[in-house]
């Protein structure tokens, strides 16, 4: 495997998406090629920093309730009595189409 072969695969390598055999070849190349090793390390560091700095934000329950009220009003949909989400899923699950 040459540097030209390795560069397009670095993203999949970082994500652990390479087939085992290809991964082995790539790792053997990294052992003897400082340039490709630096490429992989730099990309991995950028991705780690991105993930560490940007934890997905979570919507508040107050917003969810408010948005549902807005949607119901805008779409002219009758609101349903508030029930816990778990019960709601079970309740409307009875009307699902079959898998056939």
């Amino acid at each position, binding site marked *: 495997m040459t540097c030209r072969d390795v560069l*397009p695969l*670095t*993203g*999949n390598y970082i994500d652990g998406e390479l087939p085992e055999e290809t991964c082995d070849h790539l790792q053997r190349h990294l052992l003897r090629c400082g340039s490709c090793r630096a490429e992989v390390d*730099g*990309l991995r*560091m*950028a*991705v*780690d*920093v*991105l*993930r*560490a*700095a*940007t934890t*997905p*934000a*979570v*919507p508040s329950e107050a*917003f*969810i309730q408010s*948005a*549902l009220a*807005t*949607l*119901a009003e*805008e*779409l*002219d*949909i*009758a*609101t*349903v009595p508030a029930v816990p*989400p778990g019960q*709601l*899923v079970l*309740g*409307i699950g009875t*009307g*699902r*189409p079959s898998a056939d």
Partner: protein
Amino acid sequence: MRPPGSEDDYWVDRVRQGDGAAMEYLFRRYVHRVFGFAHAMLRSREDAEEVVTDTFLRVFRFAPELRGEGSFEGWLLRIARNLCLDRLRRPRLLTLPLEELGEATSLLTPVDQVDRTALRYLVEAALDRLPEEYRVALILRDVQGLSARETAEVLGKGETALRSLHQRARRALREALRALEEEDGEAAE
């Protein structure tokens, strides 16, 4: 994400018939994904909330056939992405001054030892230097954890093209982080 014709279509149809429980079911099922994406793009809880509400309004109003190929979730995120980009193209009243990076960390410092706020500012400043398409790909793939196929669907690209775009986006992010670190070092001298 689910394939077209999945049970999501059934629930959308129920919403269009005025079923409030179906609307709440679909909203709660996907609100975290759409909100997380919009917040990462806009960095404002208030703006993200408005985008979420507008996104679901459009989805429930538009006829399902307008969705075209792809999953319900992909359609939702495509609409949210367009709404986010519309907002980002408006004149911005508040921008993050780079001076706020202050003592932002070195990339060589272990992530768990640095000030998280400074790290966030650093990453936000780096993301601001990237093309919109790169930002969307990075947020969907690396922050929200969508697969390449799912991200390709949101961006309207083939999977191979998306993988190439994502690779370029990661390299651009790395270069932007390095540039910011160098500028920060020069400013400190």
